[in-house]
């Protein structure tokens, strides 16, 4: 079942019908109660610890949900970001958002999906990129031509005709053949991911 079929199925279940009389009366019912007190909003006390827990839990859930939900229990989630090279994972995410996936990013806060507003990301070979500044690393899968914020810098990721990867930023350029200019504080690795099928 694809997205469009799911939408069709969901929409094929209408809400229960109501009588014309109900729709005629409802606005009046609301108007008659405009000055009644409402049930109080949720109290705001103790929100900081809750927020901290919720944030931590959400990060864990997103990561776990992403991996487990997509049946990648076997995939190692060690800090080297090898999971992002999993072909099945990439295929499934791309299938869910055809031509909208700009990047799948993994950093210390977990995994994130960067999507384009419209289906304007051309189909091409996925590129695996790892950028480290000190001990902080960001690993991602993206596609040639995408401009992304990585390790605090805006970078454009490009594939060259020889199967290499080039990263360019405001004040640096890096290529997988070893050439580098600027950004001495960054350690970069990148390579195309060879997919068995597209």
């Amino acid at each position, binding site marked *: 079942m694809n997205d469009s079929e799911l939408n069709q199925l969901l929409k094929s279940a209408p809400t229960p019908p109501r009588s014309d009389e109900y729709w005629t009366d409802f606005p009046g019912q*609301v108007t008659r109660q*405009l000055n009644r007190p409402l*049930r109080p909003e949720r109290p705001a006390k103790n929100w900081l610890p809750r927020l901290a827990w919720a944030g931590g839990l959400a990060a864990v859930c997103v990561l776990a949900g992403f991996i487990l939900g997509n049946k990648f229990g076997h995939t190692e989630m060690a800090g080297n970001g090898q999971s992002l090279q999993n072909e099945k994972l990439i295929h499934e995410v791309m299938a869910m*958002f055809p031509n909208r996936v700009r990047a799948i990013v993994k950093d210390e806060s977990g995994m*994130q999906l960067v999507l384009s507003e419209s289906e304007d990301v051309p189909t091409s070979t996925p590129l695996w990129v790892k950028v480290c500044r000190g001990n902080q690393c960001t690993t991602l899968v993206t596609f040639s031509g995408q401009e992304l914020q990585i390790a605090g810098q805006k970078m454009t990721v490009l594939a060259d005709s020889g199967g290499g990867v080039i990263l360019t930023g405001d004040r640096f350029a890096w290529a997988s053949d070893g050439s580098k200019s600027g950004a001495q504080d960054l350690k970069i690795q990148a390579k195309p991911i060879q997919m068995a099928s597209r």
Partner: protein
Amino acid sequence: MLAENDEQELIRQSREGRAEAFTALVSSHQRMVHSLTYRMTGSVAEAEDLAQEAFIRAWQHLDSFQGSAKFSTWLCRIAMNACLNWRQRESRRGEVHETWANDAFSPGPDEGARAASGKLNEKVQAALNRLPVKQRAAIVLTVYEEMNHAEAARALGCTEATISWRVFSARSKLKRWLKSTDHE
């Protein structure tokens, strides 16, 4: 549906306390709000109460409507918050949903009869009820209200990326749960 200018005028008059103008706004958006509250609760009665509550909250907070988003998006946000708050207040509801969802999905002797009798609505709503509430909200807004991810993010007060994740996750589950329904 009201023309945008008419709607702006009704909002202006409502802010001045003219209830009849607000009645016209309710009339214009009542079906959308009822649909949203029903999808979120799976209960006709609760949907009515929450729709009413949402409109009353909207009346009381009209001054906070800036006009940067569509009135319907702002209203959706209020209705959605009413549903989410209701979920917290009525925690027992989770048990009701769980029971309903389990009944709807457990294979049994009536499975064939269920398919034959075409209880599609029940099965779809049960699948929605089975989703975590925030994922359900994301599906309700993006599928039923046909909002794009940016609008849904505004309505739910979260980032677009969060909406994308919730929709992605919810779709995966719904496809799995409704797989058999697809062929009925």
